[in-house]
Structure formats: structure tokens, C-alpha cells
């Protein structure tokens, strides 16, 4: 990846909390423009601590660790010497609990808050707000008080209020916690749409099926270090490595691997691959023994 494609560059970052717990024990990685990254790992592996370094919510506690952001206008900013709100236009961050980040009386005001802070054009803001509300499936609710939204809708509102800022990178900490499959899909679909616009999306998730389906890159963490990093197919094929951190690849991938079908990650992939195999066996020269009995 060349320098222009990199948006976040992390070098030798360690982080020790006040109580002495070492949450990051030396992390080096780069996040590229246009990636859909999923950070996975068991609780306490350092996922959130790492993600909070992306926009200066946390700073490395070791003197040698650096986090640099490469902005769209070609500047390189070290998060250590920059105040949080100056980094907001480059990296947006959505916390786990939506209720702790929604503070306006209407959804419209909630969405307008961030763009106004970073100097958005008032002429186009109204349109961007409507588009983002539509993106997260909340169209027509612009004048609703967020209190009257369901938990899943509030989660989508919190995500929308960051996406509308048009940041290069949107980091979303556990976007689907406590949501059913349908609501989780709505959330991930909005992130996928945002990603399709060329933005970088980083999620922290425990839902391996959704990670396999949506992410283009998976970073597995263990004890404050990157355990493995690659495409979902690469990462989920390393079952022994993932076992070290108690992660089980998606069930469809496990089943397909047992059947000797590599590269399968989702149920759709599995159906396609298995149909292809069945078609081959039916039309091929050596049909399965039970086929003879049927004929």
C-alpha cells in the first residue's frame, strides 16, 4: 500500500491504563483508504483501546509509539500533539451506547451538530442530512425526538450523526450489540453503503457471520497485540490460530472447510459452492453410489 492510500498509520503503540493494566502491548498497523475493517477478539483483548487511538480518544502511553493520520488534503497529523476536535473531520467515532452520545431534541439537529462544528456548507447540509437519514433507514423521522426511537433506531441515529460528517474513517464500536438479525443487517447495510462511497469503515464486532459477510479486512487481537490480519478468507481459514483467542469462524465456513470447500465464508457462499459440487457429481462420469440406487 503506498503512502497516499494510507489513512491511519500506527507504529509501536503501547497503552497502559492508570490502574496499571496494559491494554496494548506494541501494535503496528496501517489502515488504508476505502477499507472495511473488522477488529475481532475476546473481551479485554485491546480492541476498543486500539480503536480509540485512531482519533486521539486515547494516546500511546509509551514515548516511542505514534499514531499518524493522513488527511485528504495531504497533511500528516500526529494525534499526540493534536486536540480531539481537530481530528474529528478525519476520523469519526461512534461509542457503544447510543444514549450517551445523543443530546438534541430532534434527529435533524442531532445530525447537523457534527457537520456544523467542522464548518459544513449550510446550503448542502439539509440535503446531506436527508440522505444520511435515508441511508440508515430513518427517513421521515427528521423532526422526531430521539427519545421516541427504539434502541436499534437510536443506534442507527448515533451512527448517522457520525457518517453525515463525511469523515475519511468512521469507527463504530460494536454496532450490533443487543440487536436482532434484521436490525443488525440494517445497521451493517448502512455502513456498507457508506463504504461504497469510498469511505473507510472500522467496526469492532463479536458477530463473526456479519464480519465475514461485510468486512474486507479482519484484524484479530489477543492480549494487546495483533494476532492475525488479512482478508476474512485468510483470517477465518486459520482455525488453530483463532482458537488461541477463542474465536470460532462463521459456522458456514467451518462446515465448508470440513467438507473440503475452501474460501467459503457465508451461507450464500456455501450454498453456491455445494450446488456447484452437486451439479458436477450429478452430471459427471462417476455418480455417487446412492445415486445408482435412486436410478
Amino acid at each position, binding site marked *: 500500500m503506498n503512502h497516499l492510500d494510507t489513512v491511519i498509520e500506527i507504529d509501536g503503540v503501547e497503552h497502559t491504563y492508570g490502574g496499571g493494566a496494559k491494554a496494548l502491548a506494541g501494535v503496528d498497523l496501517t489502515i488504508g483508504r476505502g477499507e472495511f475493517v473488522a477488529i475481532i477478539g475476546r473481551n479485554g483483548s485491546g480492541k476498543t483501546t486500539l480503536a480509540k487511538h485512531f*482519533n486521539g*480518544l486515547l494516546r500511546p502511553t509509551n514515548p516511542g509509539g505514534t499514531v499518524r493520520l493522513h488527511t485528504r488534503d495531504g497533511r500528516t497529523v500526529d494525534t499526540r500533539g493534536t*486536540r*480531539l*476536535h481537530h481530528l*474529528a*473531520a478525519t476520523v*469519526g*467515532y461512534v*461509542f457503544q*451506547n447510543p*444514549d*450517551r*452520545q*445523543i*443530546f438534541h431534541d430532534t434527529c435533524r439537529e442531532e445530525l447537523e*451538530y*457534527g457537520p456544523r*462544528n*467542522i464548518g459544513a456548507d449550510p446550503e448542502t447540509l439539509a440535503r446531506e442530512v436527508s440522505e444520511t437519514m435515508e441511508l440508515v433507514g430513518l427517513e421521515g423521522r427528521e423532526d422526531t425526538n430521539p*427519545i421516541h426511537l427504539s434502541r436499534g433506531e437510536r443506534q442507527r441515529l448515533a451512527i448517522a*450523526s*457520525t457518517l453525515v*460528517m463525511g469523515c475519511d474513517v468512521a469507527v463504530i464500536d460494536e454496532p450490533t450489540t443487543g440487536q436482532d438479525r434484521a436490525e443488525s443487517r440494517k445497521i451493517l447495510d448502512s455502513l456498507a453503503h457508506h463504504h461504497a462511497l469510498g469511505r473507510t469503515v472500522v467496526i469492532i464486532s463479536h458477530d463473526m457471520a456479519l464480519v465475514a459477510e461485510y468486512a474486507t479486512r479482519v484484524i484479530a487481537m489477543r492480549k494487546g497485540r495483533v494476532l492475525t490480519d488479512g482478508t476474512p478468507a485468510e483470517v477465518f481459514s486459520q482455525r488453530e490460530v483463532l482458537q488461541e483467542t477463542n474465536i470460532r469462524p462463521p459456522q458456514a465456513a467451518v462446515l465448508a472447510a470440513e467438507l473440503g470447500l475452501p474460501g467459503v465464508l457465508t451461507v450464500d457462499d456455501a450454498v453456491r459452492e455445494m450446488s456447484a459440487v452437486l451439479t458436477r457429481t450429478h452430471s459427471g462420469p462417476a455418480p455417487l453410489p446412492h445415486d445408482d440406487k435412486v436410478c
Partner: protein
Amino acid sequence: MSGTMLYQPGKTFLHRADARAKIAAIIVVLVVALTTTRIDVLVALTAVVVIGLAVLARITPASYAKALLLIIPLVLLLTLLQSLVQGGPALATIGGVSLSRAGVLLGLGIGMRLFAMGICFYGFSVTTSPSDIALALHKVGVPYKFAYLTSFAFRFLPLLQDEARTLLTAMAVRGSAESSSRHPLRRGRAIVRMLFPMLAGSMKRSSDIALSMELRGYSLPGPRTFYRTTSFRTGDALLVVGVVLLAAALLVMQWQLPAPFTEGA
């Protein structure tokens, strides 16, 4: 506000003292503070409280200086208002408006009163665990439900502070310069914006906690047992006697000495 308003475990005299003795001491200080407006008495009272905390609990003024700085604008405003509404000889005349000497003294006196009371409460909350407060109140006859409520209010503080911190960070993450501004007015705007969601969140949380407490048997009739115990020792008695003597000395000072900075002084 900083996290330092909360109970910090320790082994100093005030940490070990019975919460009842500390509550009695606070009441004595409050009575003195609220019954006088004499600035010399209030300065002496504040000095007693500051020295008392430093000696008995090893709490240095540096740990609460930040909170006191927040009160200063209020004190200045009070002094200005009092100097305009009180009569008597003028201390100064600015543009035809005379500032009353008695008013300035009264305003500063009220400011010192706030300082003394604030530092006193700070010392109490830093050295007394919420469970000890509940137990002490229960021992002096407050029904357990109310005693527990009081201690719960103290327990709720860190949660509120945590909520406030997260909301301010959420604003900064979305590009707000207000939430981390050092300018009191700009930061004040962020705090006002934060208040409603914080209160709504707290109410939701309190109702969840109330239900959860009930589900685990809170408020069932019948006797309840306590894990912690408390005993009123000689040291506690000495603390109360000491504070009463100091209060008496301050009252004598008020009666015996002429008021300072008056025309006759």
C-alpha cells in the same frame, strides 16, 4: 468538576472516624458559617477547616483548589450585587455608581462562607464511604430506606461524572471545540447542552436500579442485617468536642473583637 469529589480510601484520622462524629462536626461548622456574616470570623473558620483537613486527613488545598476556582465568579457577582444594593459609606465610586463598603464586605463574607462549607463537604465526601454514611444515618434513627437513599446519592456521583465525561467526549469527537474549551462560557454552553440527556439518562438508570433492588428484596418488611459495623470511639468524641470548642472560640471572637474595616476600626 473532577473525580476527586469521590470517596478515596485512606487510613488517616478522618477516614477512620465515625461518620456520625463527622456529620456532627459538619453541622457545627455550618451553624457557625450561617450565623455570621463577619468576614474575619468566616476567614478564621475557613482557615480552621483547611488546616483541620490538612492535619487530620492529609488533604492539601491543591486537591480542591480547582473546585474553589469555579465558585470565584459567583463570589465576585455576589460582591458586586451586594455593593450596589447595600447602603453606608462608599468604598469607591465608578462612573457615578458608588460601591458600598459594607456591601463589598458582606459579599466577600458570603464568599468565604461558601468556601468554608464547600471545603467541609469535600472533606466529608472524600473521607467517608457511602456505606458508612448509610449506616451512620441509620444508627442515629433515620429509617433505613432514607439512609440508603442518601448513600445512594453519593454512589451515583461517579456514574453521573462518567456519563458527563462520555457526553463531552462524544461532542469533541464530532468536532465540538466547546466541550474541551478552557473558556468558562464556551465550556458552559457544552455543559448546558449535556444536562438534559444526562438527567434523562440518570432517571432511566435510577428507575432500572430501583426495580433491580426491589427484585432482590429491597424494602421487604422485617429486620435486616448489616455487614459493616460502626463504633463511636474516644477519638470521635474528641473530634466533636474539638470542633465545638473551636466554634465557641470563633463566636467569642465575634462578640469580643470589633468588626474589621468599619469606620471606627
